């Protein structure tokens, strides 16, 4: 039996078969949600990759790795910015009261990752070693952890929250 509290707190089953009938959601949200799901993994992967290339640069001082990091972070931010807007649209179009604890955790962690990576992108513009060591690689690690944690929240709430089929839990 799924209670209203469960729905509010995001504790709804992953299978949509057992889920309550999704409340009506706006057409806007049903367009924005799949766009978000499409874009959201891209910055996560790129930010994690930037950790790898930062570590490679720290270990080698070979400038190719620094250039890789700069492009990975920049591309992550480009896709991340569009994803962030899509996420905001989903939240507003669905109604903030239906986002739930894990939904808000997801949003906060993803936005935190983007903000950290904006700082990181500027740190990475330095011409050489100080672009990465020590602040750059540190921010890359923290940013990647936030991004991965945002992925982690999806284990605890229905993917339906942001999917076209379901509704915000």
């Amino acid at each position, binding site marked *: 039996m799924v209670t209203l509290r469960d729905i509010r707190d995001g504790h709804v089953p992953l299978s949509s078969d057992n889920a309550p009938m999704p409340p009506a959601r706006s057409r806007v949200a049903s367009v924005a949600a799949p766009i978000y799901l499409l874009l959201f993994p891209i910055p996560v992967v790129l930010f994690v990759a930037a950790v790898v290339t930062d570590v490679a640069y720290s270990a080698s*001082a070979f*400038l190719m790795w*620094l*250039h890789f990091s*700069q*492009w990975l972070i*920049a591309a992550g931010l480009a896709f991340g910015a569009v994803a962030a807007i899509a996420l905001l649209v989903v939240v507003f179009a669905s109604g903030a009261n239906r986002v739930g604890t894990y939904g808000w955790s997801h949003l906060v962690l993803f936005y935190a990752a983007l903000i950290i990576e904006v*700082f990181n*992108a*500027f*740190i990475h*513009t*330095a*011409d*050489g*070693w*100080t*672009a990465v060591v020590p602040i750059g690689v540190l921010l890359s690690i923290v940013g990647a952890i936030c991004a991965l944690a945002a992925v982690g929240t999806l284990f605890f709430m229905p993917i339906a929250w942001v999917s076209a089929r379901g509704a915000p839990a």
Partner: protein
Amino acid sequence: MGVRTGGAGMKRHIALVVCLSLAACGTGQNIEKSTQYGPTPDIPEPSRTLLPQMKVADVVGWSGGDKPTVPQGFRIDAIATGLSSPRNIYALPNGDLLVIESKKDAPEPLERPKRPVMAWIEKKAHGGSGGERPSNRVLLLRHADSGGKPDTPTVLIDHLNSPFGVVLVGDTLYVADTDAILRFPFKVGQTSVDGPGEKVIDLPAGPINHHWTKSLTANADGSKLYVGVGSNSNAMERGIEAETNRAAIWEVDPASGAFKVFARGLRNPNGLTFYPGSSTLWAVVNERDELGPNLVPDYLTSVKPGAFYGWPYSYWGQHVDPRVRPQRSDLVKSAIAPDYGLSSHVAPLGLAFYTGNSFPSQFHGGAFVGEHGSWNRPEPNGYKLVFIRFENGRPVGDPMDFVTGFLEDGKAHGRPVGVAVDRTGALIVADDVGNTVWRVTAETKS
């Protein structure tokens, strides 16, 4: 909801505090630029802000009868206007002037996201000077002595590849394109040269070609040429492979086309000139960026044969640049400090020793330096021509502002580059974004 709004407001406050404290890291360099004049400039610790501190002056050009300002007792006139990025001047013994119009044509490779931003800044700083009018040529300017009216130049050599340095040795005119030194037969008084010129030696150029101006001079007997080859990067961020024989002054034997590196570690050496009556070569050097608004001082220096001046591993002697890896403490140990600081980011590109007689005696034997002007410090620096007095062949005292007014209310009318002294003792200044050649004369001889 109110709480949430408060939280967002708090977050904004925190972000602001973080930004401010990051900006505050830069205040460690709060020093007067005058502390960086002369042989022992103040060298603060490197500082860094999250957002680069810069002020790129919009180029507005000269309108109407606007002119730069000169000290009392001097007058300044435009002797050629409507040019296309005139960057250098060379005075011929008969009074003719060579004006070198030059632009960097090829874009630098897109290696990292920063490049398009830098390209935009560079473009803004040059204000699209000269528009699409033809450039990259040597003009001959014969002064008609028509009482301050601009003269009409004729094209002496066309279709060059970003030329900068020229030097006349006997009946041979050497022109330093960005990728080669060329030789043209030329007798003083001629108004044209025949043929495309003959290559003396290739110089390091593309595909990056970051510092592209090749300054050129010859020793007294014309047996050797000296050419400045600037670095391919700010601080070796394109790798050491891109810097082969760059950030150096080459000594070239024009007869054989052979060269050797005469001095190294000079990030972007320009204005190569022998001190009059001596065998001492002098240059002005653009030092590195992005270590803060007051680092690193650009400088004027005599160039010691075989010496290493630090770039990229260290600056002003043995101050190690933290950005450059792998570090080379062996090379840093051999780095020598230059002679005379001009303060940071003034971008000196022109140097001429005063060899005339029409200026007052304090100017005789002193150095005029064309300071193209800064972009990467919040308070603009440079954008003027300074004079440095010399005694016994060495610079003394602080630089004195000589031609100013290129920058007004944060907007650039022009930017001085190459400098020369003509046969009459007048000072000639190339103004690349103002597309003008200026002539400074003394009103009264003292």
